[in-house]
């Protein structure tokens, strides 16, 4: 929980909400969180990954009461990702043991089809007894300034959270990257280019 303690790594965006009164906006924001709330992976199901919003200080809670979700000017919450990874090595071992037992019983090795079926069944069994790995990424959105911070640097996860927030809150997130800041300052490619003396000294162009 980087927001609560320790060092922080963050990716920043600008996210401006349409102007509306504070009371209706609060409720709308909490509803948006609830709509995309985290749901645990079903034990007997097929999915191996689940992701969604959870409360910042309680990663099993998805009520998003005002006291849990608002800290002064900030809306705070987390993005939880649960993954079940069936160990490939363990699956290979189980399949090898099953193949041996099959051969002992039927006095012949299993066919490719039989092995595929067995592998699928074994995988399901292992999946049912493998606990999910949980990762949580904090998010803080200053509703006055429009600054949204994701406490995460993994591009894949940042993209996923960005998409979830944009869809749930009907808002566009603008990263605070060199490209976007360059555009926001009204600069144009024709007028600001790489400095040759710094980027490729001694050469006339980038070769």
């Amino acid at each position, binding site marked *: 929980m980087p927001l609560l303690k320790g060092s922080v790594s963050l990716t920043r965006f600008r996210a401006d909400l349409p102007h509306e009164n504070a009371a209706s906006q609060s409720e709308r924001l909490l509803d948006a969180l609830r709509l995309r709330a985290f749901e645990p992976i079903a034990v007997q199901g097929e999915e191996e990954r689940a992701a969604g919003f959870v409360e910042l200080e309680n990663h099993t809670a998805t009520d998003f009461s005002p006291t849990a979700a608002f800290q002064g000017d900030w809306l705070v919450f987390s993005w939880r990702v649960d993954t079940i990874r069936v160990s490939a090595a363990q699956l290979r071992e189980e399949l090898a043991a099953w193949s041996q037992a099959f051969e002992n019983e039927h006095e012949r090795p299993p066919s490719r089809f039989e092995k595929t079926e067995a592998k699928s069944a074994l995988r399901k069994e292992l999946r049912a007894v493998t606990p999910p790995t949980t990762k949580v990424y904090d998010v803080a959105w200053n509703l006055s300034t429009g600054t949204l911070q994701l406490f995460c640097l993994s591009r894949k996860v940042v993209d996923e959270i960005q998409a979830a927030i944009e869809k749930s809150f009907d808002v566009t997130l603008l990263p605070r990257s*060199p490209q976007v800041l360059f555009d926001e300052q009204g600069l144009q490619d024709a007028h600001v280019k790489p*400095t040759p003396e710094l980027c490729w000294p001694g050469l006339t162009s980038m070769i």
Partner: protein
Amino acid sequence: MSRRQDAAFARGDIGVDGEATEETREAAEVERARAREQFLAGKTWLGREFLTWLLWRSESSDALLEFHGEPVHVLFGGRLTLKGVTGDVIELTVKGTEAAYSKVNRFALEHGLLIHAAKLKLTLGEKEFDFTLDAQLLDIRSAKLPDLLTDDEDDRIQERLFLSERLGDLVQTVFIHFLELRRTPEWKNTIVPEILDWLRADK
């Protein structure tokens, strides 16, 4: 052939004539092409020029600028990653408390390797922020926030929120300050020559 050349020949890096083999030349060109792509994507080159300018600027004891009425100073810390698009070396990491200000580092910068990521200390008045900044997206990594003033548990979260946002705003403000300089004739006519003089100093 020397022993080094013998080893290079055994690896297939050079031929009997001592020159790089076709495969080695192609691999190097592929690497440089990838480096050029990364350099151009999303104006990463601008982020690198920014960090390089910031290093030069940090040599001065003058404040970078004022932020909410307080002076901002910067110091580079113990680790830098430099990247380039031409030449045999396209990436270099230097480590050491004074590595950023070393002759080795200035030599690399003088030869087209710009700063891609750096450990920085930004001081805003009495507050210090230690973190790593990267040129590609201006992401802030492993930031150590200043000590909190409050002991109250509930207020601690808000104070951390305030400080992390302040750090992000600070980085953005310094970058925009750089962009404002970058768009003026002063960049080409004064600042770049001064940076080059600084890189060549002590030779």
